């Protein structure tokens, strides 16, 4: 149930069906609560293991309760306590080992609950008048089974506007059709594409250490770097497709988490397209406040642009740190932060050297965009080494080739991704330009039915033939 399995999809569709028996917010909330509790029960098996999670939720609600009653001066303390509780429950190695609970307990979904709880605390503590959030609404928002395992991270106001509205979002045949198509697409991504990509990457990981000629090893290195971004994209965005569609069938609109990330022409743009709800959350609650605070203290006009660079580094360093408690993720965070900061610096330097207008013209040049896209992909692919590997594995992979051979592999990845992604963008634009009066043919319901049928057939046949579970949703571990 914690993956994009047949069971999960059927469960989601059943819940959506029951939820639509009445439009009343009470009924829909009741169904969502019952479904969420059942979902938790199935995942946890033994309710005792849920106690720490329940404690965390209670702590969050206690803070929220006090803030809603005007104890706003303590906002920072509440936030610190919640952050500390999160670090403690997730067993971050910055705390001594003896400090942790050593009985097994349930942490699935905790990271996403953490973001929702912090969001509620911060928004409640900002001084603006809001309708108080009762315990039931709090639980529905934080535990909602569609977003429990790996997001997306939704704002409370958006959640409440759909979930508790007397007139929830409409659900006609067109919307239902679109969601069913999206479920099929998501299922195919997770259960077929991700499964195969995972196997191909494992093959390459093994081959790089085998007694093979150097060209084979370099080809293996190429595949190790290139396949994983596509795997993680299919694995994560496929699951997100399914939960967004199930939620929409329950008349709840979840935010998008991906927007064709590999078409980003810069690293800055990439993070506007990849795990959007996470980066938006961090921009709202880390980047913006930090930048404002620094600008208040540092008033130098020369330094002002560089404050953004620093804030980008800090924000995206935290993106990495959030992913895990090990030093690999710390380094992953450094690489993400460095990528963002370097990209911003490059923009500043180029704009400074060329002038604003020529820089803008250059930024629109198709070749500049294509090479930028390739470079963005290459950088992201290499940073992911610290996402999927531990130090010993990374060391084994990196030491399989000499530094100049790795440089060649990187260059090959840059050039080939530039070419392939640019061709893909061109092909996509060409196909989308085939239009009727109702819009693009490719996006019409007729085309969608056709490719959903083909993907559905392929997914069912391959799933039945292989009869093996797809790799788990990677982001559920965070």
């Amino acid at each position: 149930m914690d993956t994009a399995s047949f069971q999960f999809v059927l469960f989601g569709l059943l819940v959506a069906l029951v939820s639509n028996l009445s439009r009343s917010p009470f009924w829909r909330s009741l169904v969502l609560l019952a479904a969420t509790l059942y979902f938790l029960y199935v995942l946890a098996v033994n309710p005792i293991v849920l106690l720490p999670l329940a404690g965390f939720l209670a702590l969050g609600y206690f803070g929220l309760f006090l803030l809603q009653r005007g104890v706003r001066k303590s906002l920072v303390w509440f936030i610190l306590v919640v952050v500390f509780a999160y670090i403690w429950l997730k067993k971050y190695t910055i705390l001594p080992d003896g400090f942790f609970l050593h009985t097994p307990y349930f942490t699935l979904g905790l990271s996403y609950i953490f973001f929702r709880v912090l969001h509620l605390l911060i928004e409640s503590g900002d001084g603006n008048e809001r309708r108080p959030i009762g315990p039931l609404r709090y639980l529905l928002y934080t535990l909602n089974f569609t977003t429990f395992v790996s997001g997306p991270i939704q704002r409370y106001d958006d959640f409440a506007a759909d979930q508790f509205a007397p007139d929830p979002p409409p659900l006609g045949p067109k919307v239902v059709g679109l969601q069913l198509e999206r479920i099929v697409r998501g299922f195919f991504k997770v259960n077929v594409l991700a499964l195969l990509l995972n196997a191909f990457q494992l093959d390459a990981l093994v081959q790089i250490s085998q007694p093979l000629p150097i060209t084979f090893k370099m080809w293996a290195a190429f595949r190790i770097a290139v396949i994983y971004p596509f795997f993680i994209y299919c694995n994560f965005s496929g699951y997100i497709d399914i939960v967004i569609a199930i939620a929409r069938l329950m008349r709840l609109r979840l935010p998008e988490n991906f927007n064709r990330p590999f078409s980003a022409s810069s690293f800055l743009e990439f993070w506007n397209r990849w795990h959007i709800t996470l980066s938006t959350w961090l921009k709202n609650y880390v980047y913006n406040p930090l930048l404002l605070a620094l600008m208040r203290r540092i008033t130098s006009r020369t330094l002002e642009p560089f404050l953004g660079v620093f804030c980008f580094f800090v924000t995206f360093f935290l993106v990495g740190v959030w992913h895990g408690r090990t030093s690999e993720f710390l380094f992953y965070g450094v690489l993400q932060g460095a990528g963002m900061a370097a990209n911003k610096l490059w923009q500043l330097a180029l704009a400074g050297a060329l002038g604003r207008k020529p820089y803008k013209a250059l930024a629109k040049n198709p070749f500049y965009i294509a090479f930028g896209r390739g470079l963005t992909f290459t950088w992201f692919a290499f940073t992911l080494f610290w996402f999927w590997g531990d130090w010993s594995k990374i060391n084994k992979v990196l030491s399989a080739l000499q530094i100049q051979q790795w440089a060649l592999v990187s260059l090959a990845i840059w050039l080939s991704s530039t070419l392939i992604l640019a061709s893909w963008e061109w092909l996509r634009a060409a196909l989308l330009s085939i239009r009727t009066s109702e819009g693009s043919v490719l996006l019409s319901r007729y085309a969608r039915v056709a490719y959903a049928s083909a993907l559905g057939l392929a997914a069912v046949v391959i799933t039945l033939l292989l009869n093996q579970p797809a790799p788990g949703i990677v982001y559920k571990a965070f």
Partner: protein
Amino acid sequence: MTETRLDGNVRLQEARLPRLDWILLPLIGIMTILLVSAATKSVSSHYFSKSSNTLAACLIQNDPSTGVRGVPNSECRAKSPEFPTIDYKFNSCGHRAGMECGPKPPEVYRIVMIGSSYPFGLNVQREDSIAALLPLDLSRRTGRQIQIYNEAMYTGFPRSFDLRFNEIQAAQPDLILWIVTATDIKYSSTVLLPNNTIPQGVPLGFVAKATYRLRQALHSGSVLDAINSVENNALVAFRDSDIGVMLVHTLNLSPSQSIASYKAEGSDSFLLRDQLSEERQHDLDEFNTDAASIQERAKSASIPIVAVLVPERIRATMISLNQWPPGYAPYKLSDLLRSMIVNHGGTYVDILPGLKTIGNIDQLYEPVDNHPTPKGHAIISALIADQLVKGAVPALKGAHPTDTSLAEKR
């Protein structure tokens, strides 16, 4: 895709679907499925077809006193889905030996090879098989004239060699080379495979076949069992079809995926688990009994016997990748086999460690059929030759083995 807040009229519009679409959209869905299926069928029929002629025409498969044997002086052509068309030619003794049967020529060191489909050379031309490659390699390395007389037989499991030991003896071997696979252990005591085919008289259409299977299943169990049995049969039938073979072949080209797929299967048909199930342990005990009997007879006839475990694709993959899931032990069967063979007075040679140096394991076997390709036969042959000339058989002790012969063949 992003929806904005909609007013009443727009909402009504959004909810409506033109009447024609209620017919058109399902029709498009069905047509797409049919089209995709037809296209897949067409591709799979082209690349993964099997011939209507089978090897069965050259085999006598209903004699429990000998097990499966070849029809003397017969010739067959057959094609399995993943392989090209292969010629099978049997001599007057019913062996795919590449030579006539009879007493061995003087000055020749003759090895009689026994085993099932791997040494038989199923799905490869005789000249690409172990039986043809190994004597060349051994002769080159030892400087002696070495001949392999191949008595291996498709589905010729150990008990049938016990039954046909006089045939082995008649070939006057200096050595018996017994190629063992995990399948031989699983079916050790099986002399003839049970016939699960549909009897003559039942029409061959899909519905007729399904009805026949359903009736059979209903006869022996409950309705649920019957449905289950038909479902399983349908899946097996689909897997055996051109499309099924093409899809599984393509999906399992990845060695890691093959391992994951085998793990998901759960049955451990290749005895790869570190803890063998009761069923597999029973298979092993049966094999031990047959091995004791065959070796006893070889000892009485003063013929030395050398056994070797030739790995199937999954075992070879695990060893080559040096990676296997917890609970699996790809070397264990070899160790068990060694102790059995040595206990009964034979010699065992282990070629599994040699696989660690093979980088392109995915090219050595076909993923669905599981039999070695010509390249696989060449590697297996070289690995066996390496072991034999190392001193396992004093008469074959030759030049010190090097990896060059192996590398040449890769």
